[in-house]
């Protein structure tokens, strides 16, 4: 447990305490404690159905927990509505990318950029492209498709657009739900580089199943299982943990690298 031992613990940006989420009697998250410190790049892994997405859902206000608290920069998030949470500086992507198909790529990005504008300025027309949008276009490699409606994007392109939207949103905390799923190897690499760059200035939580990706980019990893934290530590520590191998990695190929 790296964070705990450090001499001057950095301020916790996200603090989840005693979280419990119940769906029709089934506890998807049960007694979860989870802390992310300012400036961290945290990976969140765990078996399918462990509750990773549900955790993000709770933090971002999509799901109401049965018990527990979620504090962000000292403020309680539970009970706030989704857009308030965004305005406090929490941004997320979705496991299945959702973009506005009828709007062009640029318009999608621009909307993500404009939420801080007062209503009055929203009533004006967009003129040109802001720097943030331009650099997100660049980062997501969508410049060529900038004026195409997002509906024509392929699965992977949507994923990129979604990351781009998150970037222009400039949140303090980014929650990425399987950002590289469905991306080709080189694209995963590019995402990884991007992630690294973002992480130098933001706090990031990434949910991923891609172990190769994890090994390359992760510093600290939290493993969830059946709604609680099974293990937290460095990539190596986690990979060696027999319980993690049992429930998540699998016996044979836990370490296999290609």
């Amino acid at each position, binding site marked *: 447990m790296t964070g705990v031992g450090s001499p001057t613990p950095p301020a916790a940006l996200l603090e989840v305490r005693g979280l419990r989420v119940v*769906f029709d009697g089934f506890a998807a998250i049960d007694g979860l404690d989870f802390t992310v410190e300012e400036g961290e790049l945290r990976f969140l892994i765990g078996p399918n159905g462990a509750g990773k997405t549900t955790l993000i*859902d709770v933090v971002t206000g999509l799901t109401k927990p049965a018990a527990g608290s979620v504090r962000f920069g000292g403020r309680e998030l539970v009970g706030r509505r989704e857009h308030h949470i965004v305005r406090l500086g929490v941004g997320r992507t*979705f496991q*299945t990318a*959702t973009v506005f198909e009828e709007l062009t790529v640029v318009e999608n990005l621009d909307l993500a950029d404009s939420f801080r504008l007062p209503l009055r300025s929203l009533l004006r027309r967009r003129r040109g492209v802001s720097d943030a949008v331009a650099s997100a276009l660049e980062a997501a490699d969508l410049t060529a498709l900038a004026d195409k409606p997002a509906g024509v994007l392929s699965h992977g392109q949507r994923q990129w657009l979604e990351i781009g939207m998150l970037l222009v949103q400039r949140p303090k905390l980014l929650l990425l739900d399987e950002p590289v799923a469905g991306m080709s190897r080189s694209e995963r690499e590019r995402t990884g580089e991007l992630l690294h760059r973002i992480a130098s200035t933001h706090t990031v939580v990434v949910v991923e199943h891609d172990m190769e990706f994890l090994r390359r980019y992760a510093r600290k990893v939290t493993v969830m299982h059946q709604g609680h934290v099974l293990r937290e530590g460095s990539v190596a520590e986690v990979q060696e943990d027999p319980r993690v191998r049992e429930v998540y990695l699998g016996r044979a190929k836990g370490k296999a690298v290609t």
Partner: protein
Amino acid sequence: MGALANQLPIGLSIAAVLLLIALGLTFTFGQMGVINMAHGEFIMAGAYTAFLLQGVTSQSFLIALPVAFAVAGLMGLLLEWSLIRRFYGRPLDTLLLTWGVSLVLQQLARDLFGAPNVQVTAPGWLVGGVDVLGLRLPYNRVFIIGLAVVCVVGVWLYLTRLPAGRRMRAVVQNRELAAYSGIATGRVDRFTFLLGSGLAGVAGVALTLVGPVGPSLGTFYIVDAFLVVVAGGLGQLRGAVLAAVALGFLNGYLEFWTDASLAKVLVFVAIIAFLQVRPQGMFVLKGRALV
């Protein structure tokens, strides 16, 4: 006080009518997401079927039930096959489309049967009534309540127990995937529409016992029918049943205490208020996906 108690069976009677007219929508609206404004005209078709059949045999009225099911069902099938199938995934467009169809059907009825109402004579065994709680409950109401119960049970069995019902739900939820699963989606759609519309036809026969039979018949019931489904929760049979019962009693008592006009307005207010608490109706199927 006595009158208050004998509003009970009346609430039930109103509920039964609401349920009958709304039941078919459980399929076409609830399952398939088609806001079928022509549903009322299918009810009308059922009523005219009863009209045409009367006097053919001594039990024409009973025979009219399955025949009306077939007639309205076939009309629904035809509508699905010719138009609706181009509109899946565009529920609001189906509303306008079927409204256009309903106008045409109304005018057609006017041209075929004339603008004035026609009369369907109730069979002898439905004349008269039975005393319940000091109130005389007409046999025709008892019949409608019974018919509603039978239809609900049938629909429930179909939806939950029969492969065909399962198949229908699969197609509605994900047409493409259903095809990938080997389901002949087109056939399922048509059959679903046939069922929903057929139920409207059955309702039409029953309504000849208590209401007018004319070209505008459908317009009297359509708004209420949709309100039942909305209050109940889309695609939820138990929701529809509960909503019909709740609205039936609400209607009955509010009208008893105030008057029919005010009762209608108050029911609407109650539904808005209710949707504040339960925005998706009484029963909602939860989902995680973003809309």
